[in-house]
Structure formats: structure tokens, C-alpha cells
């Protein structure tokens, strides 16, 4: 609590015992940590995971752990508990966290993640999520052979670190100056002389991030719904955001899809997760799927209108919240099966897209992680063995596979089929098949069995790990155009996807499909913008001027955590929607202002987006203006909040994702010195002695005042 400014003049005037420095007492004791990404508490129907501090915050003696020996020292011989270790990322492993936790000597953990602390991912790999991601919510939840990844362990490196419940806080420090200050404070006060007892005062840290929600989502929602006073208190919110979907050609209810099976769906997930809240720049390999799909959408969007009209309906879907038990896809399937996707038909609205159901889907192509195919010997086309027992499904799956095969032949990528008994990896397609085994689909990925990505769903799934090293000496605009190794290989993947989709949609020969190529510059730009710096020319061109301004303050890439639903879609979903509109839509040259470029009220098929455009420098007076423009495309958002939160029965059904995020009110951390217990006791004892002596002395002085003061002056 800082001393309010209005009190300061009083304080410093009134006492003669003012100190010379014009500082509040708070500033003499505390130094605030300026930025942190906390580990927050999440809950599902049965558990709580994540971290919380005590109500009054957790305090611990700072210990900088730069080497494994420092951690071992803490666990084995540290005496002044509780401690608050500051770890370099390399040491933040399952074993160390569990060891420290079991030692009972720590009150929290800080992880240094500044721009100078090299993350140095462990060679052995690091994945803090489960070995079997999204277990129980895919299509095999009670299949005798495939349930719980019995058949294939997809993420063998998964330690489950992120899915544990911690009763202490953990924070990622993202500001290098904070980290430097902490290390300096550690060196000044806490330099341990091996095992000898350290002299006080010691440098300590307090983290305060009490989580309001507790136990599980069901309890938390029930508590939030109790209206015991006029100010209802909400303890947690369901996770969710918006899916982005768009079609190459508008779907119109005047020509319904029926069950003719003429719809092709191409999907990818956009979200990822890290233990630490909303840290951007993670999940690089995870992002390759949707980046490749966006580039493929661009390649197909360039086709001329006549050709597009002759093709089958092609729908691109970008799912949100898939990390948390398939939030986005489960909701889309739920809406589809109820005849509410994209929206209930309404006679009062003349222009509405036709209803889409799972039964309309002829081919489903999902792009999973595809960044590491060169290491794993090519792309792999996964399909589901259960649904392929039906010959119609099998034929369609084979049709997709042969289209991919043709496309890979022309791009020099090898494509493989995992053994036919192998189940589908975790994918949105599983949610479609869970409801409707008649959906023929393939999941395209860079792994045959276990993930090629050794850093799955961790903050170490960094661009550098997928061959996106950009020379450090490049200027931002050069880095933006720089072709990385990943850029080259992902362009090939995007081309394969585009050609596959073209072939499936148009029934044309592979040689005709070969005219379609994904743009390598688009891939470079997308990779740069999504994984390095969101404040980049491509985003600046396709976003509204307001959103562009918001990006300016962002130092790195956009966070891709699904978070809780707000009125507007997450930044990342908004960017994907605008890019999809930009790639699939048409320019409307007559609409030149944001007010003109509004989606008409009768039109529920298209959306109109006014984009900021590229900067144009006026050479005469050196001012910059923007070549803004209006785009129209049939691109829409759809709700990505789990159906579990629609009714109480569904919340208890185990059918849908039940993840919620706890709310919290205070989030701060500060550095300060602590004195020893002995010193504190001495102060208290001195105080007690002073007051007792005063009381006794005054008692006697008062009763014997006639003895003490006997010679008043005569004049008085």
C-alpha cells in the first residue's frame, strides 16, 4: 500500500525525524515486480489444477537456481524455509517441481523468462500435459481397444505437470529488469556459503494471486449461482471463445445441403496452452496446422469465380479451445446436430446460410501439427479404423488419401499411412465421429505414431525448435520477408493441402490441381506474424485501424490461450477471421469508409470487414496514409463455449468439456528483506520491557511525587 500523495506533505513536515530521502516507507521496504504471468487455477467437473497463493500472499526466501545443484541444495540442505526459488527455464522440470514440492521447503516458484535468459530446452524433451491429451472426450472414450491411448501413446513425454493442483503460486517473470533485480538481490543478501547458516536479513519475495474458485467446476458454478446478496460474486468462468469458419462460395439456404454429401470441411485448431497465463509465443509446431490451412485458403481463394462456382462447397474451420477437451468442435457438432449451425433458419431473414449437419460432410481434412515432417520422414494421414468398417466411409477416406497422394507426388513430399489398426490421434475430427461415424476424414500430421514434437503444449515449443531461426542482425522488415527452413517446408505442406482440397472439390485431374501453389511469401509472413511479432505488416493490413493500434503495444506474438468468453472474439480469432476474409473474399471498391462497409442487416451470409490497408507515404509532405479497403466474404464466427454449460444435466454428463477458469482479484509480487525470527523476538521483548518498566516506574513516581517534587519555588 503506497502512502497516498496527499498525505505525504503532512508526513514529511510534521516530524522532525524525517528522513532526508523523499520516499514513502513502502518504497524503503518493497520493490514491486513489474510483470508476471501467473499459473492460474482451472477446474473441470472433478478436479482443480493450477496454482493459488494464500489470501495474504505467499512469502519465501529468494533462491536463484541456475544449476541443478542449486535445486538439490534447496531440497536437501536449505534451512531457512520457506523458500521461493527463481529458476532458469531449463530447471523447471517435472522432477524438480515435484522434488521441491515434496520437500515442503518452498512457498512458490518463479521462472525467469526474460529476453536474456536463454530457454535452452532440455534435449530429452519437455511436455507438461498428459501422455494422452483430451482423453475421455474424443471418440474412443469407452472403446475396448483404443480408449485411454491404449493403442498408441501420442505424447510419451507428457509429464502432466500442468495438470496438477499446487497449493502455492508459480509465476513466469517476463521482464528482464525484474529478473536482473532479483538475481542482484539474491547475490547481495542470500549468497549462501554452502551449508553454513545464512545471516539475516535475507532477500525474499511475496506473490499474491489468490484464486477465488475451488474444488471443481460444478461446485464453483453452483457457488457462483447462489444469490445471497445484491452483489452476486462469480468465482469462475467457463473457458471459451469463438470458432472461425468460412466457405469458398457462400452457402445459401435457398439451396440447402440436404444429405447429398457435397460438403468438404478443412479444419485446424488455433489455440494452445501453457501453464503460465496468456504467455505468447508458445506452441510453434502447434500453430503450423492453422498457418498452413490459411495459406491453402489463400491459394484457393485466388481461383476465378466461375471455377469456384463449379466446385463443391468447401468450408474452412478454425477451432478454438480444442486444447481443453475439444471445446470448439464439440460445440459446433452439438449445434449442427440440433439444426442450429450456423444459425436456426428464420423466415424473416432473407439471406441466411443453409444449415450444415455432420451428415452433409463428404470429406473432412484436418491439419494437425505439420511443422516437423522433414524429421519424421514425411506427412502422415491418420484415419479412424472404427468408422471405416462401413464401406461408404472407407471409400471416401480412400478418396481423400489418394487426393493427398497425388498432391504430395507433385510436391516431393512422401505421404504415409499409419498401420490400419492405429486409432486417430487427438483431433477435432474425433468429436465429429463421436456423434456421427459416417464422417469420412483424415488427420494430416507430421508424426506416424507418437508426436514428433518433443515440446508438445509447452512454453518450449518455440519457433527455433521448428527451424524458424531468423538471423539476429536483420531489420524487422527484412526478418518479416526472410525465408526460414520452416517457411520452405510449410509452403510445401500448404500446397499439398490446397491441391488436395481442389482435387476433392472439383473432381479434376492431379495435373490440373498442380496449377495451385501456396505462396511462400504468405507462409513466411504468417509464420513471422503468428510466431514472432504480431505487430507486423500483414496483420496491420488486414485488421481494423483500432485493432492495429492495439497490436502496437504487444512486444511479441499473440497469446493463443482460449481464455474466457468476452463480447468480442479473442485477438487471435479476430486475426484469423480477418485473414480468412482477406484470402477468400472480394474487394468492394465502392465502399470506402468504415460506415459504408457494414454488413447489411438482411445479410447473414457474408460479413463485411473494413481493413486498414497498407501504408502509403505521400512524398510531397511526407505523411503516411492508409490504403484502406472493404472486404466481403462468407466468413463467420461461431460460438466456442462447451455445451456443458448450457444445462445442468449436460454439465454432469461427462460428454462435454467442463473446464472453467477461476477468477482472481489481486495479482502482485514484491521483493523485500526479511529479518530473522530471533531479531523480531528481540524487538518485541525490548518493547515489552520498555512498557513494563515505564508502568512500574510511573507507578512509583506518581505515588512518591511528594518525595520527588518537594521544593516548589516560592514565587509560584
Amino acid at each position, binding site marked *: 500500500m503506497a502512502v497516498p500523495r496527499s498525505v505525504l*506533505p503532512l508526513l514529511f513536515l510534521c*516530524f522532525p525525524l*524525517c528522513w532526508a530521502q523523499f520516499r514513502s516507507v513502502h518504497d524503503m521496504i518493497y520493490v514491486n515486480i513489474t510483470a508476471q504471468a501467473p499459473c492460474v487455477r482451472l477446474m473441470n467437473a472433478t478436479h482443480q489444477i493450477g496454482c493459488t497463493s494464500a489470501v495474504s500472499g505467499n512469502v519465501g526466501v529468494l533462491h536463484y537456481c541456475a544449476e541443478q545443484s542449486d535445486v538439490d541444495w534447496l531440497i536437501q540442505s536449505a534451512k531457512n524455509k520457506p523458500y521461493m526459488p527463481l529458476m532458469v527455464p531449463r530447471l523447471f522440470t517435472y522432477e524438480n517441481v515435484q522434488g521441491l514440492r515434496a520437500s515442503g521447503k518452498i512457498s512458490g516458484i518463479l521462472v525467469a523468462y526474460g529476453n536474456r535468459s536463454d530457454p535452452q530446452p532440455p534435449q530429452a524433451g519437455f511436455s507438461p500435459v498428459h501422455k494422452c491429451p483430451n482423453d475421455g472426450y474424443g471418440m474412443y472414450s469407452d472403446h475396448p481397444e483404443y480408449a485411454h491411448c491404449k493403442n498408441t501413446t501420442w505424447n510419451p513425454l507428457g509429464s502432466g505437470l500442468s495438470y496438477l493442483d499446487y497449493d502455492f503460486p508459480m509465476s513466469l517473470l517476463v521482464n528482464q529488469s525484474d529478473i536482473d533485480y532479483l538475481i542482484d538481490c539474491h547475490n547481495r543478501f542470500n549468497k549462501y556459503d554452502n551449508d553454513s547458516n545464512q545471516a539475516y536479513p535475507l532477500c525474499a519475495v511475496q506473490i499474491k494471486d489468490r484464486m477465488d474458485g475451488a474444488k471443481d467446476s460444478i461446485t464453483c458454478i453452483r457457488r457462483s449461482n447462489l444469490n445471497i446478496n445484491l452483489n452476486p460474486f462469480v468465482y469462475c468462468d467457463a473457458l471459451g471463445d469463438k470458432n472461425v469458419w468460412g466457405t469458398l462460395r457462400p452457402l445459401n439456404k435457398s439451396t440447402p445441403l440436404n444429405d447429398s454429401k457435397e460438403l468438404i470441411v478443412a479444419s485446424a485448431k488455433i489455440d494452445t496452452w501453457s501453464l503460465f497465463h496468456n504467455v505468447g509465443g508458445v506452441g510453434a509446431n502447434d500453430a503450423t496446422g492453422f498457418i498452413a490451412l490459411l495459406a491453402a485458403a489463400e491459394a484457393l481463394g485466388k481461383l476465378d469465380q466461375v471455377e469456384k462456382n463449379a466446385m463443391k462447397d468447401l468450408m474452412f474451420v478454425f477451432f478454438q479451445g480444442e486444447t481443453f477437451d475439444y471445446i470448439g468442435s464439440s460445440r459446433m457438432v452439438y449445434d449442427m446436430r440440433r439444426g442450429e449451425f450456423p444459425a436456426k433458419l428464420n423466415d424473416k431473414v432473407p439471406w441466411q446460410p443453409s444449415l450444415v449437419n455432420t451428415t452433409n460432410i463428404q470429406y473432412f481434412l484436418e491439419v494437425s501439427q505439420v511443422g516437423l515432417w522433414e524429421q519424421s520422414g514425411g506427412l502422415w494421414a491418420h484415419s479412424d479404423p472404427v468408422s471405416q468398417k462401413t464401406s461408404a466411409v472407407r471409400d471416401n477416406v480412400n478418396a481423400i488419401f489418394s487426393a493427398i497422394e497425388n498432391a504430395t507426388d507433385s510436391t516431393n513430399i512422401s505421404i504415409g499411412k499409419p498401420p490400419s489398426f492405429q486409432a486417430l490421434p487427438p483431433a477435432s475430427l474425433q468429436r465429429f465421429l463421436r456423434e456421427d461415424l459416417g464422417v469420412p476424414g483424415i488427420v494430416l500430421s507430421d508424426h506416424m505414431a507418437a508426436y514428433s514434437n518433443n515440446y508438445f503444449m509447452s512454453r518450449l515449443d518455440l519457433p527455433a525448435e521448428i527451424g524458424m531461426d531468423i538471423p539476429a542482425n536483420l531489420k524487422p522488415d527484412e526478418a518479416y520477408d526472410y525465408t526460414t527452413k520452416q517457411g520452405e517446408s510449410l509452403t510445401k505442406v500448404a500446397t499439398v493441402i490446397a491441391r488436395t482440397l481442389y482435387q476433392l472439390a472439383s473432381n479434376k485431374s492431379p495435373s490440373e490441381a498442380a496449377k495451385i501453389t501456396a505462396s511462400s511469401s504468405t507462409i513466411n509472413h504468417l509464420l513471422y506474424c503468428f510466431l514472432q511479432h504480431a505487430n507486423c505488416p500483414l496483420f496491420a493490413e488486414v485488421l481494423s485501424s483500432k485493432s492495429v493500434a492495439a497490436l502496437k503495444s504487444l512486444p511479441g506474438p499473440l497469446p493463443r490461450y482460449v481464455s474466457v468468453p468476452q463480447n468480442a472474439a479473442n485477438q487471435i480469432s479476430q486475426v484469423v477471421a480477418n485473414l480468412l476474409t482477406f484470402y477468400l473474399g472480394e474487394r468492394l471498391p465502392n465502399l470506402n469508409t468504415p460506415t459504408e462497409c457494414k454488413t447489411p442487416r438482411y445479410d447473414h451470409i457474408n460479413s463485411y470487414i473494413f481493413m486498414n490497408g497498407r501504408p502509403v507515404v505521400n512524398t510531397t509532405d511526407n505523411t503516411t496514409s492508409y490504403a484502406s479497403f472493404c472486404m466481403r466474404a462468407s466468413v463467420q464466427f461461431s460460438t466456442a463455449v462447451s455445451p456443458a454449460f448450457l444445462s445442468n444435466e449436460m454439465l454432469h454428463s461427462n460428454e462435454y468439456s467442463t473446464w472453467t477458469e477461476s477468477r482472481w482479484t489481486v495479482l502482485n509480487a514484491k521483493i*523485500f528483506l526479511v*529479518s530473522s525470527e530471533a531479531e523480531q523476538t528481540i524487538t518485541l521483548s525490548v518493547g515489552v520491557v520498555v*512498557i513494563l518498566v515505564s508502568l512500574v516506574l510511573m507507578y512509583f513516581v506518581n505515588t512518591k511525587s511528594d518525595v520527588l517534587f518537594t521544593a516548589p519555588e516560592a514565587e509560584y
Partner: protein
Amino acid sequence: MTVKEFFGCTFIAYGPAFALFIFTIAREPLRIIILIAGCFFWLLSLLFSSVLWNIVWPLKDQLAFGVVFSVLFQEIFRFFIYKLLRKADEGLQTFSDEPPTASDKHTIAYVAGLGFGLMSGAFSLVNVLAMATGPGTVGINGDTPYFFLTSALMTSCFILLHTFWNVIFFWGCDKRNFPAVGFVVGFHMLISCLTLIRPLQPATIIPAYCILLVTMAIAYKLVGGSVNNLMAFLTCKRAGYASN
């Protein structure tokens, strides 16, 4: 800093004043009125100091300016309360059952001084104590780790100093003994400026307590004490023998 240290410092700073209050003031309503008057006048001096500090904005960051004028205002208001209490003397006596004695004037001076000191003590330490309950202790920016302890000791010292200064000041005014008045103002200024030079270090505490001892001795002498009386008190002689 923890709850332990909070209580430790509170006891150190306010313990002696609390003992004085309990045994000499609490039971007499008249004295409580005078005590509150003392508090009030100290607050008035604070108000005027603050107004001046706000008006003279270019010197806002100059701590010495604030300290010097604050001391002057405190002494001016000490004079005002002297004037007021002497004017109210007869009126106040009507509240008292006992006939006025010679030592009553000293009592009034002492009680008003304690009020003066208590209020200054409250303002100098309360904000420090408010910070003291948190987990941290002073020192991360190189400040002395004994900050809380020295603050408490200085506060205690100042409460007692104000009490004794008031006795000397009132006596000086009554007797038109200007060296006595000058002594009070001078030493108040001296010790305040001392804290400016070496803020709250053990080095300031020792001279401050030396000044306190000197001031206490002078005040004791003025109100009728002597070495003999002190010896008599220490050897537990009864009042009758000493005065006879």
C-alpha cells in the same frame, strides 16, 4: 517486519507516554481536557506548516525548508497554547475540587506538553507502523535495517522531549526568562536538523537521548526536584522526613 515487530515498536514508542497517561492524567478530567488542547494545538501547527509548504511550491522538495518552518510553527503554537492556558487558568480551576497550589502551573505545562508530544508521536510513527505489519523489513535499497527500531526510539524520545520542553517553555514565559525559551526552541531546531544530516541512524539516537536527559534534568530542577529528592526517592524515604 511482522506482527511481532509491530507490537515491539508500538510498545517502545508509546509505552512511556502510555504509562504517564495512565498514572497521571487518566483519572483527572481537567487534565484530559488540557491534554486534548495540547494535541489540538500541535495539529494546528501542522496545518499551518502544510499550508505554507503548499504555498511555497518551489521549495517543496527541500526537506530542510519544511523542517525548519515546521519547528518554528510548533514553537509558535506552543506559545499560543501557553497564552490560552494562562488565560483559562481561573476558569479551569472551577472544574477542580482542590484549591490551587504552586505546582499546578507545572502540571498544566506538563499535561499540555504530553498532548503536544503524543500528537507529534502519532503522526511520526503511525504510517511507519502501518507498513510494519507487512512481511518485509527496511533495507533492500540500502536503508538501515534498524529503521523501525530507531523510528520507534526517536518517536518515544520526541514525545518525552515535547513534554519536558513544554514545562521549561511555560516556566520561561512565566518568568520572562528568555534564555529558557530560547533553549527550548534552539534544541528543538538542533535535534530536528540533526535528523536531517543523519536520518534515523543509531548515530542520531544517542545525541537525541543525551539531549533528552539534559532537558529532563532541567525540567526536574524547575519543578522542584533536586539530587537530594532523587536520592530520597531511590532509598525509599518517606515524604515527611524529606520536607522536614
